């Protein structure tokens, strides 16, 4: 039964991820006074891209070809092991916060190497920037994880979520709130959203994530786009379940799983809409002010840890 939970969860994430991007674009379009293409547009884009021919730039290697698959695979593993719909998983040993963070980083690295492998200036630029942001976001993630796990005594994601469900009051503790703010900044940075990166920019010089994938075409591009949608869903889902753990199934029964699915979709949709609406009010930060933002989130991480200790 717990295997069923995993399958449900993975399929759900795969289906939902492009829709989440669609919803976010739609929210943005409405706020800008446009009609918007509808929430299903990313799926239409993907369907078309999967049918197009993939292309390799001359002089690139197997790294370029393999990177999208590695990116999707690493994200799928996270989708399978983390507690999005249910906390019961046969893959319990992998559902560790640090392992999930490292897997996310693995995907980033695969894409950065592909960006360098194309041999274009833009690819290298995107890779360099992406790695800088990822490196500087790392301390915040681990410190916020530290603050969350200090209460539970474990970095196992399911354990953290279950503890959150058992003592709802603790979610409002200063440590958790500070960690939530710190992780929110990091989620924005890792997902490549405003104000760190602009996902819909056309200007190469301001790109981070987009610059790395400029050379991808056809189904390679489909994989990359799908992976970035899946990563966004995974990040928002993790954030939601760490800080708003309600509705996550703790048993593998069908009604509990159903409730878990509904709760997950609702949480992610709301968070996505809030994020998209927030982006309307924001401009992209200069690249060299991004470290300041991340340093700020690091500060919140430190405060989260110290308040979990000093105010305990």
């Amino acid at each position, binding site marked *: 039964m717990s295997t069923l939970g995993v399958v449900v969860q993975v399929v759900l994430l795969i289906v939902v991820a492009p829709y989440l991007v669609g919803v976010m674009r739609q929210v943005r379009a409405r706020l800008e006074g446009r009609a918007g293409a509808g929430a299903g547009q990313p799926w239409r884009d993907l369907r078309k891209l999967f049918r*197009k021919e993939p292309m390799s730039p*001359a002089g690139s290697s197997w790294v370029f070809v393999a990177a999208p698959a590695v990116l999707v*695979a690493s994200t799928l593993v996270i989708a*399978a092991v983390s507690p999005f719909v249910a906390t019961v998983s046969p893959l319990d040993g*992998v559902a560790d916060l640090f392992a999930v963070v490292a897997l996310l980083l693995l995907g980033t*690295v695969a894409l950065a*190497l592909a960006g360098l492998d194309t041999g274009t200036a833009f690819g290298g630029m995107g890779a360099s920037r992406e790695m800088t942001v990822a490196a500087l976001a790392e301390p915040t993630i681990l410190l916020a994880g530290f603050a969350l796990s200090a209460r539970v005594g*474990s970095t196992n994601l399911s354990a953290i979520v279950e503890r959150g469900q058992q003592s709802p009051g603790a979610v409002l503790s200063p440590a958790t709130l500070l960690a939530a703010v710190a992780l929110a900044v990091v989620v924005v940075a890792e997902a490549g959203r405003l104000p760190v990166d602009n996902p819909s920019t056309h200007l190469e010089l301001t790109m981070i994530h987009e610059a790395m994938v400029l050379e991808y075409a056809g*189904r390679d591009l489909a994989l990359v786009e799908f992976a970035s949608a899946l990563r966004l869903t995974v990040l928002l889902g993790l954030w939601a379940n760490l800080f708003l753990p309600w509705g996550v199934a703790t048993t593998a029964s069908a009604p509990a799983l159903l409730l878990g699915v509904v709760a997950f979709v609702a949480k992610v949709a709301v968070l996505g809409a809030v994020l998209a609406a927030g982006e309307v009010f924001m401009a992209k930060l200069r690249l060299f002010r991004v470290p300041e933002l991340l340093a700020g989130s690091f500060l919140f991480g*430190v405060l989260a840890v110290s308040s979990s200790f000093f105010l305990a």
Partner: protein
Amino acid sequence: MSIGWALVGVLVIAGLGALGAVATGSRGRALVAGVSTAGVGVFGVLAGVSALGGEAFSKTIPQLLPLSEVTVTVDALSGLFCALIGGVAVIAGLYNIGYSDGHGSRTGQSLLPLFVAAMILVPAAGNVTTFLVLWEVMALVSLMLVLAEHRLRPSVRDAGVWYAAMTHAGLVAILLGLVLFASKAGGESFTALRDADLSTTTRSVIFVLVFVGFGSKAGMVPLHVWLPRAHPEAPSPVSALMSAAMVKLGLYGVLRVGLDLLGGGPRWWWLLVLVAGGVSALFGVLQASVAVDLKRLLGYSTTENMGLILLGVGAGGMFAADGNRTLGSLLIAAGLLHALNHAGFKTLLFLGAGSVLRATGLRDLDRLGGLVSRMPATTALFGVGALAAAALPPGNGFVSEWLLLQGLIHGLPGADAVVAVAMPLAVGVVALTAGLGVATFVKAFGTGFLARPRSEEAAGAKESPRTMRFAMLVAAAVCAGLAISPASLGPALTRVLEALPTVRDGSPLEGGVTLRLTGIAGSISPVLILAGLFVAGLLVVVLVRRGLPRRESLVWGCGGTRLDPRMEYTATSFAEPLTRVFDDVLRPEHDVDVTHHAESQYLIESVRYRQRVDDRVEAALYPPVLAAGNKLGAVLSRLQNGSVHRYLALGLGGLIVVLVVVGLTA
């Protein structure tokens, strides 16, 4: 085989190998030296594995050294390091066969087996004299190996001078510490030291002295300055041996003296180790992330990893001093596991860098590139090492960093203010180190091996000979083994911890497929992660295989002319954002030369941009010391005027002073 015979084997093969390498001509020399080095390594591994299996060995040979006896004691702690060094030596020896084929110098090749033998015997030493003699032999032999290519590049000599000075300064500190220890303890065998009853002040003085000495060998900031110079300049098998094996002996010394012979000690010792480790890790990775010389990058990465190991050991010692043995043993086990992992991947990386150097003559990442199609095997193997060094799953570095973080995180409940401040900062340091480490190795692999070649040398690179590839494959296999089954090392690590009386506490980790920690909640499964990645990857490939075939097309250059390799991102440009973010720490020097046309100052003929990132710690700390040394030298040189009578008078004076001191203290 018993440990004793294995150690005899080490000595015999090293001697035969050295003689053989001296005797053979330039054609077979690399083969003889390589095979005998590997043989010495095999015996080292045998000795180490039997010690880790629970066998103990102790032997005293009187009167082998003047005024002292030679004692050899091997316990599980020694065994771990013997096995580690032996393993690295097997791989480096095999690699040397191809690498030095036809151009290895007589001295360099014949000293290689001796160097390995000295390193294997250092942890087997059972008394102070034996230890110091072997330590000095190791230092001298490695110095000569560093200098092996001094005829080819003048920079080698500079590196040699730095290495000689630093390693001997370290030796003086260790010598002072251990001699003080032995004199206060009234005996020089390790057993006598262990049983000695000393005042806390004495013990602290001994610990600080010894820590400085071993710290310099471990490449700890600010005593690391020799490392990024000596490692790049040494021949690559020697770099691998030094970086993967020799620096670990610094760790051995800290563990042996601090936790075993001195038996733990107050908390501030270990806080010192923790802080030194943290600073080294951060500084090392920062320098590595902006380095453009591939071997220098790897050298700084060694400083970083030794820093992480010492951070773990320091935190472990701190918890052990507080009486929390569960965490103490976990953190020290994490440090030891990371030492093994680092030995594995750093060997692989230095050998990979050696292959690149041999094929192109370049260490400069800015001029490399395009090796993925020219040296596919080397590229793939270097990639395995880089993955491990970046501490990403499924590489082996990930597991030990995970253990380290688990230990640090679980220290918070029940802690006092010092721990409560130290642990979050330590986690922050480890995390930033991990993040920057990833950026560093993406740079090394991405700009060094991928894309198109940035110079003619790189464009003309040829794949290395089979023996070199085989040696690297062995190293990669070791890394893979460590990555997949770290839990199988559990019993061995438990035995090592048993040799350290203050942290002894059952086995810190167990499990098969899933690695579980004992005493605290935490589990991870490297096998499942690997399997999950594999299955998911396969799924993706199978699902999207349909459709139109792949087409190759020119790189999209916005419709302009063909993109020149000079337009590619280089390692310098890759590291530029990081250089900017950390410019307060790194203080890079920029140089922009603009040449104008002779006809008009408004037309520019060429622009030259240079950036240098020097080691700021070195620039800040060493010149004053060197200046003071020069001044002292100038004063002392007045004593020497060439007159024999003056020298005799000095000798007499010295003798009188010694006698007076003896007379007064007796």
